[in-house]
């Protein structure tokens, strides 16, 4: 009874001429017949992202659903900087809101916000920070935003093609300012990444994107972008929006990413 680590291994060793009455009880061609000792192994030993007959990777679709039901986050690229923001709805008033931080630094000039499963994003941020530092140790130069995004996306893709792991349940919005100016990237659980002028993810994504499409201009200044970001969050907010339940991250031409766990700290109390 050997465990299959890749789907094609299972396909090659599946008995082709199984005429037993229980053959039809096998759930899929890649699982051994029920009642055999191999049955228990195979549930866990091939990749969860095996292709479906329609050509989709079902686990990635489910991961995107997890992202879509997460709290809304968005990002806007201005002419002289980038802003990312997210709503921060805490499960109870007893939670110490000063301890909750969704926007995090990857390097001093690159920050990230997520929609989806928080713990998954922490793992990714940890790996990305390490990769950024390895790049710096090798070249003594801060890592360009595109390179960091590419490496983060490569990590996410690995988890869609390995045995015994599941894809990450987060989409990331990476905002940074480097020699190529302000940049905003979205990275999905599949490992694909896109550069955006403005984007939203999570619960209210279609309304938020429509709102952003109307409001976005190419020559927006950073302050306007922050204002627009907060307005967009307010559009889809259930309940009372306040400076305390949104989080903002900003990076400007000074290349220092700053985050404000209470927007009120930035002086933008909006009502």
């Amino acid at each position, binding site marked *: 009874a050997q465990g299959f680590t890749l789907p094609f291994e299972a396909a090659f060793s599946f008995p082709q001429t199984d005429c037993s009455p229980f053959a039809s009880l096998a759930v899929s061609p890649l699982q051994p017949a029920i009642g055999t000792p191999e049955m228990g192994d195979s549930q866990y030993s091939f990749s969860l992202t095996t292709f479906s007959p329609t050509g989709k990777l079902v686990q990635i679709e489910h991961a995107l659903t997890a992202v879509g039901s997460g709290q809304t986050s968005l990002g806007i690229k201005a002419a002289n900087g980038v802003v990312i923001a997210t709503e921060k709805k805490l499960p109870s008033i007893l939670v110490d809101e000063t301890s909750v931080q969704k926007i995090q630094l990857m390097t001093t000039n690159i920050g990230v916000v997520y929609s989806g499963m928080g713990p998954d994003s922490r793992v990714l941020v940890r790996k990305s920070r390490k990769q950024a530092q390895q790049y710096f140790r*090798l*070249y003594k*130069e801060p890592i360009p935003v595109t390179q960091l995004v590419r490496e983060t996306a490569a990590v996410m893709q690995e988890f869609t093609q390995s045995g015994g792991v599941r894809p990450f349940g987060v989409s990331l919005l990476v905002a940074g300012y480097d020699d190529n100016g302000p940049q905003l990237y979205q990275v999905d659980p599949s490992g694909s990444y896109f550069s955006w002028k403005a984007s939203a993810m999570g619960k209210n994504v279609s309304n938020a994107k429509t709102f952003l499409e109307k409001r976005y201009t190419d020559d927006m200044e950073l302050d306007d972008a922050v204002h627009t970001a907060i307005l967009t969050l307010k559009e889809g907010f259930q309940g009372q929006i306040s400076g305390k339940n949104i989080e903002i991250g900003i990076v400007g031409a000074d290349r220092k990413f700053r985050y404000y766990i209470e927007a009120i700290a930035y002086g933008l109390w909006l009502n």
Partner: protein
Amino acid sequence: MSIFEYNGSAVVAMVGKNCFAIASDRRLGVNLQTIATDFQRIFKIHDKLYIGLSGLATDVQTLYQRLVFRHKLYQLREERDMKPQTFASLVSAVLYEKRFGPYFCMPVIAGLGEDDVPFICTMDCIGAKELAKDFVVSGTASESLYGACESMYKPNMEPEELFETISQALLSSVDRDCLSGWGGHVLLVTPTEVQERTLKSRMD
């Protein structure tokens, strides 16, 4: 005889006004016997970055191949050339990886950085970087080269004068070293062009 003196070599780089020059000898020997008089020690990484490698010839060639490999991948991934400072950090890291079984090479890196500001540096065989504003030397003739460069060097030399100076410094130094010489190879790099010249010298 030490492993660094097995093949014999001399490499020098000098900074001028918005330009730099890098020069080397052309002898390849095996102990005291001369095997070749056209050995290449200075290699191009990209149009504005050159590396000269002195020391054991096999390591010179292998190290050059490894560095060009790394730079080509960098060019493909980042869609730009490496800055000289970045490349120097890379060479230092590559050499230190082999800390306990090193490449027997002492590189001399010379390039034009951002805004075409000349950059030169050298390092020992395990990657200890040494930046300089005027000149750097390496090889079996390094002691003579230090003396010659120190006395002949002036800051802010124009390309033609820089070429003369570096050639004289190289030739007079290798004449004092039996393991290097047999001709010279000088590259003069300005923001607009690269001049490559071979020097005729005492063939002994």
